[in-house]
């Protein structure tokens, strides 16, 4: 093929690009395209999710307004309800402090000794019970004291203590015993 001198152009019309640069360019183009596509897809998906979640939120809000309106009809009931809950706690606590002293009277008069041996029963603020017993003979007193010991062994009373012991000229025996009663408290919840 004959080449004319006129067609020969020695001026460089194109700048040569290195293969390294081409590789970088290709990789950047790929990254850019993938990034844009991923961004668009993500935007689309996130947009859908946003719309769905927002719709759910709006519906929940309106549902809450409805239930609140419904609840407002029970406002008085709620006040009573809460007051009942509060009061039952107080009532339970108060009932736990009440002692069935009739149980004690039964126990003392039936299991330990009744009048005339039993002279007095005293209960103090600390729930300590003091019974005073008077007998003509020491044997009778022993029976009453044994009854106290039996009651203590049966865990019906605790900390039995002999407070005083006295025998007069005529052989009359007077004994004071203190203890704490164990109640099977019917009132305690």
């Amino acid at each position: 093929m004959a080449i004319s001198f006129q067609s020969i152009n020695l001026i460089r019309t194109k700048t040569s690009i290195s293969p390294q640069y081409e590789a970088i360019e290709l990789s950047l183009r790929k990254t850019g395209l993938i990034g844009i596509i991923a961004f668009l897809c993500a935007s689309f998906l996130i947009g859908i999710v946003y719309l769905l979640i927002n719709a759910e939120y709006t519906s929940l809000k309106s549902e809450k307004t409805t239930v609140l309106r419904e609840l407002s009809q029970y406002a008085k009931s709620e006040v009573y309800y809460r007051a009942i809950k509060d009061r039952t706690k107080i009532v339970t606590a108060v009932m736990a402090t009440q002692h069935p002293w009739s149980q004690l009277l039964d126990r003392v008069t039936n299991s330990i000794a009744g009048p005339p041996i039993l002279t007095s029963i005293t209960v103090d603020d600390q729930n300590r019970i003091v019974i005073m017993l008077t007998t003509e003979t020491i044997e009778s007193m022993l029976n009453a004291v044994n009854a106290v010991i039996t009651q203590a062994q049966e865990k019906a009373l605790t900390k039995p203590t002999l407070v005083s012991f006295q025998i007069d000229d005529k052989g009359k025996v007077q004994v004071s015993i203190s203890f704490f009663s164990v109640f099977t408290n019917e009132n305690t919840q």
Partner: protein
Amino acid sequence: MKTLNKYLRLYKNILLSLCMIGITVLGVVFGLVPVVKKIEGIRKDSIELSKSIKLIRTKISLLSLEDETVYKAKLDELLAAIPNDKSLTSLFVTIDGLGVNSGTVLSDLMVARPGAIASESAKSQSNEEKKIGSNVIPFTVTVTGSYEQIYQFVSMANNVRRFFKIKNFQISFNKASAISVAMGIDAFYAPQLAPSVALETPLDPITEQEETLIAKISMMQNLGKQLPLDNLPPLIQTEPRPDPFSL
């Protein structure tokens, strides 16, 4: 200018790619991230809303179990046992009723702290009062009767509304017929605190134990119940005197 154009032409593709990457990054940072954060916020709010709706529905289902009047009646039963205020009237009526029902004669009734000059809020509670969550009105009374009557009084004292706690007493069996017993008794009252009726505050169901307690209290004799006004005897009408200071 020529050089710039030359470079622009030369690096056109790479610049385009970099622009795409930049737009993507900016879109992610200023578009997607805030939207995702907002979605997260809405999701959290939705969860909270769902919880609160569930809670309110539970409250409605609990409250709709019984009528308002039933709740009020139950509360009244409890208030008869431990009233909101000192209610000395109900205290006196109940203790008097106990005396009548047990056949004992009551005397020397003395209320230790009938009324405080300061308001209730200024009143400091004792440890015992704090423990039980109720205020105490201590009083003493002398109960006279036979042993059986005293026994009756003591056993009935725990089974009446309003509530009493016998703190101390002494029974002497020296006299066979009539025994005089001085008793230290506590009566209780607890001012009703304004219940928090915040809509979001959960409501615990009334337990079976509490129902049993209310039923038990309602079975107790309410001696302090005041007569309805219709049952009161009519007032005696007298002619007004012309001179009120004349004998």
